[in-house]
């Protein structure tokens, strides 16, 4: 799970913050509440998760509980990978 979070944090730092690590949100911080991602940003994040972790995010899974913080993403991706036959 820490590895998942680390990869997502690195992607976040490179792609959304252009290396400004002082703006990196804490693991539990909501990306929405802290105005870090808009709807296009979430689409980018989903694409990254699907490609990086070889998974598919379903329509019904496009919810803040899965995607709106590093903690949420790590738990969501871990569950998806566990349930995947690969």
């Amino acid at each position, binding site marked *: 799970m820490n590895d998942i979070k680390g990869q997502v944090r690195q992607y976040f730092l490179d792609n959304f913050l252009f290396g400004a690590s002082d*703006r990196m949100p804490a693991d539990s911080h909501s990306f*929405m509440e802290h105005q870090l991602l808009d709807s296009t940003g979430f*689409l980018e994040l989903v694409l990254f998760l699907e490609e990086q972790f070889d998974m598919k995010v379903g329509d019904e899974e*496009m919810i803040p509980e899965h*995607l709106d913080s590093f903690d949420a993403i790590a738990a969501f991706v871990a569950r998806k990978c566990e349930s995947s036959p690969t």
Partner: protein
Amino acid sequence: MSGNSQCSPSPKGHHTKALNADVFTMDYGVEVERISQWIRRTLSSTLHKRGVVVAISGGIDSSACAALAVKALGPKKVYGLLLPERDSQGTSSARGKQLAEHLGIGYEQHDIAPALEALGCYRQRDEAIRRVVPAYSEHWKSKIAIAGGLEGGISYFRLIVQDPDGKQQDVRLSLSEYLQIVAATNYKQRVRKTVEYFHADRLNYAVTGTPNRLEYDQGFFVRNGDGSADLKPIAHLYKTQVYAIARHLKLPESVLAAVPTTDTYSLPQGQDEFYFALPYAQMDLALWALNQGHSADELAASIGITEAQAQRVLDDIQNKRRTTRTLHCVAELVEPVLHHMDTINVTAPPPALSP
């Protein structure tokens, strides 16, 4: 103001009007005169132009703007443009012509499809659609719809295509296809604006922007497309009020009865399907509720949705307002250059994050 409006305590303890369509009532004669004076003053003392160009879509907003301009300046100083393209509904141009003739203004129709074709608008859009639906061809129809947000999820976009037999497919768009379809489609608003400025330049006129308050507040426009203008006479008016002003100005019944659409995609697409959470009359009330400090439960009772849905609508309005804020701005600068001039840029340090 309406004599029917009732007062009730707001959550902040102030007395505000009950949340129903009466809140939008105003003396439309007075408002028309106020806008007319503002148009004349803006043209003469700020813009230094001799009249206005209005692109007429056949919808209520551009029709009301054209009529207000005629009230302010007379028909000889207003020039109408009908700018259809391949996906425009035929009824749009017909309504536009009817309006221009009703107002007695000069106008012309300029089909922008050849320009869009030359720029690759349709080709780029169709190429992105075929990456999602390989069988799609130019004989099919398509549109984009928003999903997720009102159910409490994260907003995303769906592509709906229809083959020549009428059979529809509905698929979620991934990032690159979504961006390319929107980027290609935005050519339409930007080419229209280019044509509008050609006529404005040749006539020494100003270009009128036609957003209503909901569109302006929520960023429902294309930057450097329909968002670009020299004056925006109805940006302070809720769409409900624009309809009322259009009725007050006795615009043709076909214009008053027109259903708001984007008129941008080949399949019929309501504005609420593409961008707004609810039909315009309810969105107007939601925006009013937010602006006047009404609570979600008051909004819910007013428009017949649950309190949780009402809260999501209010959150969505605030989110769109925030995320589209930069659409209104001039280009960012490293430091102020024209210190004495008022600009609206918003660059500011991001909110501090606690560790």
